[in-house]
């Protein structure tokens, strides 16, 4: 009797899942499946017919220097940006949970980049690189700063990383602050009585206890940076040359510019799998290090 009431209740709950499930199917599963199908064809985006060509698009990817170049750039960019933005966000968060003057003002200021539109950020930084930094370079007589960093293949990578870290760290700071505030003050107090130094407190108490936050932040940042598109479009368009062409930009270019929808879909699927693999590896490494309070 009791049991059947439970199952009927459970069925009722399952009904509630249907709208969500339908949306998921419509906007997520269906596009992915149709992209997989498209990646097995040679569709050019215009023709009314398309031929099924099996996995030959995937074989082409392996020999495509432009894809390799985009992948190398994306991985390097994602790795550097993720590490830098997390280190900086953690440092800022630790400063902002302390009882300093104007704490709330600082918190607000650091959060601003997270709420700005990426396009606006692109335009702001474009002006900074075009006018402000070269002006400072002229004034201070530093030759390296006198040119627009976005126009030079050697400096454009770091110019993009700076913008990414500046914007990306904002949301990470909030997550780290939340994590830091869950650590009870008395642990630090007893550590202080035992004579632990500031550095020791950080490595032995703070770091192990905020691993859950680190897990979230690293995965969030890594996924976002592997899929980088907006900064690149706003700031460099993939140039100069092909120096900053990310995989997502390549997919867009292949599909909409080069009339190679099939091949572009194949690259998209490869990126999709690549991100899943990276995320799973990240989770499995980081989960092991989490400490429950």
């Amino acid at each position, binding site marked *: 009797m009791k049991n059947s009431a439970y199952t009927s209740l459970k069925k009722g709950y399952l009904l509630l899942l249907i709208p969500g499930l339908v949306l998921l199917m419509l906007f997520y599963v269906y596009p992915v499946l149709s992209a997989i199908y498209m990646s097995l064809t040679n569709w050019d985006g*215009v*023709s*009314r017919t398309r031929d099924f060509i099996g996995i030959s698009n995937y074989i082409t990817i392996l020999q495509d220097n432009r894809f390799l170049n985009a992948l190398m750039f994306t991985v390097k960019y994602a790795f550097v940006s993720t590490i830098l933005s997390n280190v900086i966000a953690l440092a800022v968060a630790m400063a902002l949970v302390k009882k300093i003057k104007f704490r709330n003002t600082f918190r607000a200021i650091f959060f601003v980049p997270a709420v700005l539109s990426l396009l606006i950020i692109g335009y702001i930084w474009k002006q900074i690189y075009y006018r402000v930094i*070269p002006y400072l370079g002229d004034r201070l007589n530093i030759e390296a700063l006198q040119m627009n960093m976005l*126009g030079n293949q050697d400096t454009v990578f770091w110019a993009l990383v700076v913008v990414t870290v500046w914007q990306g760290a904002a949301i990470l700071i909030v997550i780290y602050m939340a994590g830091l505030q869950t650590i009870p003050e008395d642990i630090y107090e007893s550590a202080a009585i035992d004579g632990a130094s500031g550095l020791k407190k950080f490595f032995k108490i703070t770091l192990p206890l905020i691993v859950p936050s680190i897990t979230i932040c690293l995965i969030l940042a890594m996924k976002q940076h592997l899929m980088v598109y907006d900064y690149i479009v706003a700031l460099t368009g993939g140039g100069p040359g092909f120096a900053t062409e990310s995989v997502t930009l390549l997919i867009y270019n292949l599909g909409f510019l*080069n*009339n190679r929808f099939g091949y572009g879909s194949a690259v998209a699927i490869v990126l999709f799998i690549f991100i899943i693999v990276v995320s799973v590896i990240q989770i499995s490494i980081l989960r092991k290090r989490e400490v429950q309070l």
Partner: protein
Amino acid sequence: MKKSFSLLSVMGAALILAACNNTESPTEGAESDTTIEFFQVKAEAVNTFDTLIEQFEEENPGIKVEQNTVPDGMTVLTTRFSTGDVPDLFITYPVEQDYVLRANNDYLLDITDEDFTEKINPEIQDRYLVDDRMYGAALSLNANGVLYNKTIFNDHNLEVPETWDGLIEVMEELDANDVTPVIMGNQNVDQTSIFNLNFIAQQFDEDYWERFNNGEENVVGSSEWEEASEKMLEALQYAQRDHMGTDYDQGNDLFANGQGAMYFMGAWVLPTLRDMNDNFDEEFGYFPFPQTNNPEENVTISGVDVGLSIAADTDHPEETLKFVEFLIDEAQQFADMDGSFSAVEGVEVNDEVLQGLLPHVENGQIANWPNHYWAGGTAAEADFRGHTQNFFNHQNIDQYLEDLENMFESYRN
């Protein structure tokens, strides 16, 4: 609290009702009206078309033309083709692979037998032939040359150069006098090809590209390609110091405000520069790009700028054709407002700055954009620009030619 809530809900309901009413009224009031969507990619021409559309609608009650201009229009148009949502009327460039592909897939309305095609300069209009049928009508032509600052030229007693050596001499002289000889906006990939296609267009004709696409000609080891690349590097030295960090808008700004003496640029920029400098017509002039030392051999690149195609499956073919015919009839008005050469016969060039390129156009010393002949169409063009930007950075001719060779090879079937 309760009161204000009920008030809000009444207001909400009223709003929804009003919204419903709003969406209904146009269909109700204008049952006989036909609306044509005109998708056009030239941001500089929006006002010009608005004026012409207004006149057209006045003459043809019952037909409405809706102009649709979006950033990065050509890409958006490609997307709309891929989803089957083709606008009634849109801009297409002839010869190009994209055009041929669309024509061959029956996306474009056959206009070969329309009377208005006979008003268009046949040399230009014939570029639209695909298997002896035409799927587009040319309205205007762009042209690519050298804009120059007359004031700076006068101050340094310089004459407009007619040869390549003359151009280099002028740039040398300006450079020695601490004037930036030429402004370039090479941070935008497309700016690189406005400059360097001048050399490519002069070196190679239509027949070359046919052999080239068949793999009978190579980039590596070709003295013509090498010479073109050398000239690119030579001219590049005279650009402002941070030309790789300057984009199109910034380049326009620098040139319009007298920060440099010359600008290798297409005529489509004229309305933009006029907006930036009120005295533009007095202070600036145009001359043909001198690619060689023989003035007779130099060519001005000129391709279809506004060419119109109609969707094959449009619901309103007659109304759309009527609008195209109207635009062809009003070509003089269009040319005057747009500041471009016309593809329609009998239209005069009244634009003062544009007169500078007129001798070449009248002598027939013009060449189509070479990239329109390339296998790979817009894609090959985009890749070419990327490699060129790369070349401007590393300045290694052998590497550049090898990159181009591989690039073109990937588009040959």
